[in-house]
């Protein structure tokens, strides 16, 4: 009678172990499914977005430098930047070179990155191009849709404009932020 009772107890213990093991296996399988489904939902950035964020900023900055300025077509944007930083001689339809260059860059930024169907997050700023003179205020500092230095952004576009013979350079910078 005693032996029979012992055997029954052993059997019950064995059954419980088997069910415990099965329970653990089921839990691990469910965990695995959840993990894989989560991973498969995390889509990688599409190539189009990556291209825009990494290449367009640099292409834009390099292109605008050689563009003829509206109402002042004998000069390029680069000529006006150099004049604004150094000489202050050029006048475009009543505006000095600093105001004219600021206007023209803003028009190009507006037309390229701000239309409703494009609406790109970006920031564009100049360094060593102070206006009004003798202040520490940089002439251009445009931010669209809260793109800041802390936002996730693509490669920076930079143009260096030499002010030779002065030992100074003007920098134009642009970053496109991820949406």
């Amino acid at each position, binding site marked *: 009678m005693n032996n029979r009772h012992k055997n029954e107890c052993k059997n019950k213990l064995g059954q419980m172990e088997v069910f415990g093991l099965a329970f653990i296996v089921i839990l691990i399988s469910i965990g695995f499914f959840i993990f894989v*489904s989560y991973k498969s939902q995390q889509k990688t950035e599409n190539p189009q977005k990556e291209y825009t964020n990494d290449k367009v900023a640099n292409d834009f900055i390099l292109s605008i430098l*050689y563009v003829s300025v509206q109402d002042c*077509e004998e000069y390029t944007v680069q000529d006006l930047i150099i004049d604004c930083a150094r000489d202050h001689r050029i006048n475009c339809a009543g505006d000095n070179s600093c105001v004219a260059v600021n206007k023209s860059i803003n028009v190009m930024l507006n037309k390229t990155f701000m239309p409703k169907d494009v609406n790109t997050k970006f920031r564009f700023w100049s360094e060593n191009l102070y206006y009004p003179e003798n202040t520490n205020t940089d002439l251009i500092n445009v931010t669209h849709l809260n793109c800041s230095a802390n936002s996730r952004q693509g490669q920076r576009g930079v143009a260096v404009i030499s002010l030779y013979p002065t030992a100074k350079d003007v920098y134009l910078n642009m970053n496109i932020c991820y949406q």
Partner: protein
Amino acid sequence: MKNKRNRGQIQLGETTAVVIIVIILLVIGIVFWNKVSVSNVKDINTQSNELAVIEIANMIPELPELKCYESGVNKVKCLDWYKVLAMNASINNPDDTSTFEFYNTYFKNSRITVVRMYPEPGAGPNNATNITIYDAKINRSTITSLISIPVNIKDYAAKKTYYGQILVEGYYNEQ
């Protein structure tokens, strides 16, 4: 004798339950795997279509039939406006489709537009703001992917350099 039969029945029930659970898990696994792999194939397809559009967009400013004449290495992407006009006339010539067919091998199912944005071009026959130089005219129900590249557009006759964009739309069917 009765006890042994009972125990045997219980064990058989357990084995059956385990087999059923394993089969259910396998079925769920197969269904799940199928869904994941289908979405992966779709992603890869979309990515390769977008890469093809990027490739076309990068090819255009390097074409000698559109590129500006500059000596030395030129870092800025630049198109000659009169070459753009000539290419437009040649590709979209309704009497001779040979040029369209030639470029079709490079530009595939896409639409390519050159836009002059700044300064405003004046009035005149050659002063359009945008020109669609190539359009594969696939039906519009297909999905499009758009890439725009900032470029300089030179008008050597007027001695002006415009800021503009090359817009490349790639058409592809969603699968």
